């Protein structure tokens, strides 16, 4: 197998805030294979959006690259010059953002926006065809519409259409369905996944919705404190989680419980790192932490067919109390 499409190695990124620097990524490493659907899950502040945006060097100016590299389709993203970067974005990358209503220029008709995304001088048929691929009914009408005249789901389909316009090798979707109504999330997600499959591109979904990605992703990366704490096949990770955080997350989410059962919330709050974390970032909230967890930084290890960042991974598997709940 050739080199991975995306290779993120030891990425450290901080944000300049008022009087200090907040660390969003604390040496994150991840590889995305060609043609796979990878989900990155984590709560807000876990660093998943930073990781996704870093793939296109789309971070805001106050973000600072402190260490590490990120290579996409052979291009060193962080070191590339502006022209090379733009070529990469134009030809290899496609982004789908969380809020479709802001991702479209409000003053421009959809047809023109999509045409611009296609590049060159595409005829209306080409534009309509692209919209049809994104399962937009009545593309003729959509072409003439302004963004505000579309529902959220339709707008997101337009955004998806624009993202795949130039047949990118990598699609990055940041919470693509979070702002949509529950009843259509599934369908929009299905479209996205189908288009990926048709084009053979890789798809990275950033999300906090465990059930959703459980149905659509091949692999899943769980992020906490700016690191990927568990990475493996979706079925493995969600049905037999190893990292205590992954387990707690699954136990806390409403939807998997039986009627009358009680959810088990994770006590405490997520960390706000100001420098390299020299311990396990999850330790203060972890019900399994021991002294070592608070003093030694765990490194990624392969445990039970996946990568886990936890000192006590093996013990955790063995502990009956840590039996995973039924996942759907």
């Amino acid at each position, binding site marked *: 197998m050739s080199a991975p499409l995306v290779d993120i190695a030891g990425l450290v990124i901080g944000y300049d805030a008022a009087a200090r620097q907040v660390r969003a990524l604390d040496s994150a490493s991840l590889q995305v294979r060609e043609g796979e659907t990878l989900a990155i899950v984590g709560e807000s502040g876990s660093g998943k959006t930073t990781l996704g945006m870093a793939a296109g060097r789309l971070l805001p100016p106050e973000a600072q690259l402190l260490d590490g590299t990120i290579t996409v389709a052979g291009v060193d993203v962080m070191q590339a010059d502006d022209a090379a970067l*733009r070529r990469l974005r134009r030809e290899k990358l496609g982004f789908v953002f969380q809020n479709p209503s802001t991702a479209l220029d409000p*003053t421009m008709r959809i047809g023109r926006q999509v045409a611009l995304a296609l590049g060159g001088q595409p005829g209306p048929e080409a534009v309509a065809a692209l919209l049809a691929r994104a399962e937009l009914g009545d593309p003729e009408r959509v072409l003439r519409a302004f963004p505000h005249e579309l529902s959220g789901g339709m707008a997101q389909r337009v955004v998806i259409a624009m993202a795949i316009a130039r047949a990118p090798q990598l699609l990055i979707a940041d919470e693509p369905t979070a702002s949509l109504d529950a009843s259509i999330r599934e369908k929009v997600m299905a479209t996205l996944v189908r288009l990926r499959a048709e084009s053979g591109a890789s798809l990275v979904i950033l999300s906090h919705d465990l059930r959703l990605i459980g149905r659509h992703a091949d692999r899943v990366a769980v992020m906490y404190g700016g690191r990927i704490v568990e990475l493996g096949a979706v079925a493995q990770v969600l049905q037999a989680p190893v990292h205590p955080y992954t387990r707690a997350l699954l136990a806390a989410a409403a939807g998997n419980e039986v009627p009358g059962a009680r959810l088990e919330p994770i006590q405490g709050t997520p960390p706000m790192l100001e420098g390299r974390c020299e311990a396990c970032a999850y330790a203060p909230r972890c019900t399994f932490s021991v002294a070592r967890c608070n003093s030694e930084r765990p490194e990624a290890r392969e445990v039970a067919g996946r990568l886990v960042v936890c000192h006590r991974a093996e013990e955790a598997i063995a502990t009956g109390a840590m039996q995973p709940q039924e996942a759907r």
Partner: protein
Amino acid sequence: MRLVVYLLPRVLAALVTLFGVSVLVFLSLRLLPGGYADILLGPFVTAEARAIIAQRYGLDQPLVLQYLRWVWAMLGGDFGISMVTQRPVIDELLRRAPVTLQLALIALGVALAVGYPLGVLSGTRAAKTRKGRDFGRVIGAMGASVPDFVLGSVLIFVFSVWSLWFRVGGYVPFSTDPVGNLRTMLLPGFTLSVFGVALILRTTRDAVLRVMTEGHITAAVARGDPPRVIIRRHILRNAAIPVVTVVATYFGFLLGGAVIVEVLFSVPGVGLYIFNGLLNRDYAIVQAGVLLAAVVFISINMLADVLYALIDPRVGATR
């Protein structure tokens, strides 16, 4: 249809506003101490002479009646006559309107030509560097800090000592002598434009910066569009929305209120006419002038609303 639904309430509101302006100007004029009799007769005013003059111009009638007569006459196209010249005020206003319009256009032209590009430049730069930000701030703060009468006084000083090419006063219509016209109009136009440059620069800069925080700009960057293209396609149009509003307000002010500059540079425009009318207690002039200025101001703002709706399809759309 969208425009009609959007504009109709505005037209109604504008009529209410105009009614308010007319009452306000009418009442405040009647509250003014001193009247035309004083101006005409100078110190030689006696109670009898006053009464005769008041009667001559219908000023002895009850206020409400005077007001209604004025409004009624206006609806018939009669804006009253000037007490000083005994000529219809509307003729004089129409004669002067082109002068003020030209002055306003010069000022607006300069303000836009300088302020808008600088604003865009400063806005796009500001996202990148502190220097870019400060550049816009300095120009903006300086332009907004020199009142027109200060600048005007200094310019008059400069051009009365060294005549150079410009002239202070001695207006000639553009149609009769274009060069002579510009020699007298450019200086006051420039004086008026300085505030506009600052205003438009700041508004544009802020609008550009605000647009640049929006998601669709990030989306455009993510698609690999070069900055030039993003500015042209996505920023200019979106940033124009607040600029249109401010330009309209500025233009409205110029058309209705360039009084000091017209007085200073002896430009025979509407502002000077109203100013002198006020000093002379020539009620019809001030009433018609102020109302006309308000009509122009409101119309221009409404025009801006239309433009606004054309630029931004979201405006006026029902949900």
